[in-house]
């Protein structure tokens, strides 16, 4: 089943075109890896899907369909609840771990009794962070380590009960152990969610992604099963990038 379908997407910042006629489909419960050198439009793609690009005064054309609905007809708050975004640098909001976790859910509805605590427990457990923070939910979130903060950001997104989770180089600032933990989390969560993983680390895409898309200078060069992209890509530029010849 197709979860997100993008057709003829163009995106401009002023006169600079960041995405050029992109069309791709993302299957439900799969991880799509997006690779490509800097300025290839990977982040712009994510920011277009949850309409964050509108804050950058970007101009868009084309369609993005989420479950048969054009995203531009979905109320923006609702869209962003359904499509979560994890940034490259973990940014925790000032305040406690609990406050970080409850911020998103509280924006969307009211909670009774222990309902919210249950959501927080589930989200933190799913992000493999519960054991480490269960006794310090009232502590400032900035006391966590970088890897823990990134998992908190993932948990914070999970608490919104999203359908699609987009990650923009989520491990770029993390050590290998934290990276492994986050990749393991993604693997476990694939059953329930659809992932779009932008990464500068091609090996990471090879490890976790079902499908991989290669972007170059705003164009989608090719998209295919990950094994195919990494062993026998159709385009020589994909091959060159994966072998580290440029980018």
């Amino acid at each position: 089943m197709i979860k997100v379908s993008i057709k003829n997407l163009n995106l401009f910042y002023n006169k600079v075109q960041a995405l050029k006629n992109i069309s791709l489909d993302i299957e439900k419960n799969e991880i799509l890896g997006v690779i490509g050198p800097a300025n290839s439009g990977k982040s712009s793609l994510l920011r277009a899907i949850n309409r964050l690009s509108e804050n950058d005064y970007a101009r868009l054309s084309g369609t993005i369909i989420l479950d048969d609905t054009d995203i531009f007809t979905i109320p923006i708050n609702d869209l962003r609840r359904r499509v979560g975004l994890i940034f490259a640098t973990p940014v925790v909001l000032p305040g406690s771990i609990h406050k970080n976790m409850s911020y998103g859910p509280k924006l969307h509805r009211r909670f009774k009794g222990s309902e919210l605590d249950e959501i927080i427990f589930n989200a933190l457990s799913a992000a493999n962070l519960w054991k480490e923070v269960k006794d310090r939910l009232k502590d400032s979130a900035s006391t966590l380590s970088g890897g823990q903060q990134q998992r908190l950001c993932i948990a914070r997104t999970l608490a919104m009960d999203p359908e699609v989770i987009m990650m923009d180089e989520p491990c770029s600032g993390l050590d290998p152990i934290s990276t492994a933990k986050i990749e393991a989390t993604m693997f476990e969560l694939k059953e329930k969610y659809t992932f779009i993983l932008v990464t500068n680390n091609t090996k990471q895409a090879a490890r976790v992604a079902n499908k991989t898309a290669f972007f170059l200078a705003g164009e989608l060069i090719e998209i295919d099963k990950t094994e195919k992209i990494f062993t026998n890509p159709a385009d020589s530029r994909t091959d060159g990038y994966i072998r580290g010849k440029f980018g």
Partner: protein
Amino acid sequence: MTFRIGPRTNQIIAYSILLLMTLITVVVLFFIIGYVFKNGIGQLSLEFLTDKTRDMGKEGGILPSILGTFFVTIFAIIIATPLGVGSAVYLVEYTKGGLIHRIISFGADCLAGVPSIIFGLFGFIFFVIKLNLGWSIISGGLTLAVMIIPTIIRTTEEAIKAVPHSFREISYSLGGGKLDTILKVVLPTSLPGILTGVILGIGRAVGETAAVIFTAGSSLGIPTSAFSSTRTLAVHFYILAREGISMPKAYATATVLIIIILLVNFIAYRLMHRFMAKYY
């Protein structure tokens, strides 16, 4: 042959000059405070703080002026804080860099540079006479509010600008609207900065003479309502000294004034640190 100073000597000279400058500043400050305290602290007593003013200030205490200062300042802060913070939020979040922003910022900066006596005259003509509020706590408070709004706008603006853009993005990406983001992320994060502006405002309001003497008046009665005329501590001190009524009482009043300003600053910074320790 040229005479050169070695890098080490150079450092020592630079250090000494900077230290000297700092010392001069601090010594002048402590000298003023010390001088006032030396002349005033002996006059202080519980009676001085809690008694009515008698014989134009030659006898008795300064309770009416303490109350007057308190009410005028509180009134000014209550009016100025929401207006100042609201303006700053509007300027930074809604008019970023536009023509309106520049015009209002320029206006606020000009307002901050206007001598307080001008505010006093304005308050007298507008609040006291035109709006017929008379010499009163309301007139004085409104005048002080107009005077300290620019300070609050400026400091709040800087505090809001200092909130990382990423905090806003997080809020948006979690489905927050602009207002949610401002109320739940931007303002709480910039609270310490805003509080600094408010403290500066309190400091200016408490110490102000020219702006209140024309607007709050100089009555020595205990204020009974917001329409009572009152004499703030700074004005009381000014009149005692200027008219040669009683220099010892003048110094005692000045001592109380300085202690209040120090206390306000001390308490506010303690509160801020507790807040910061909790959240950052």
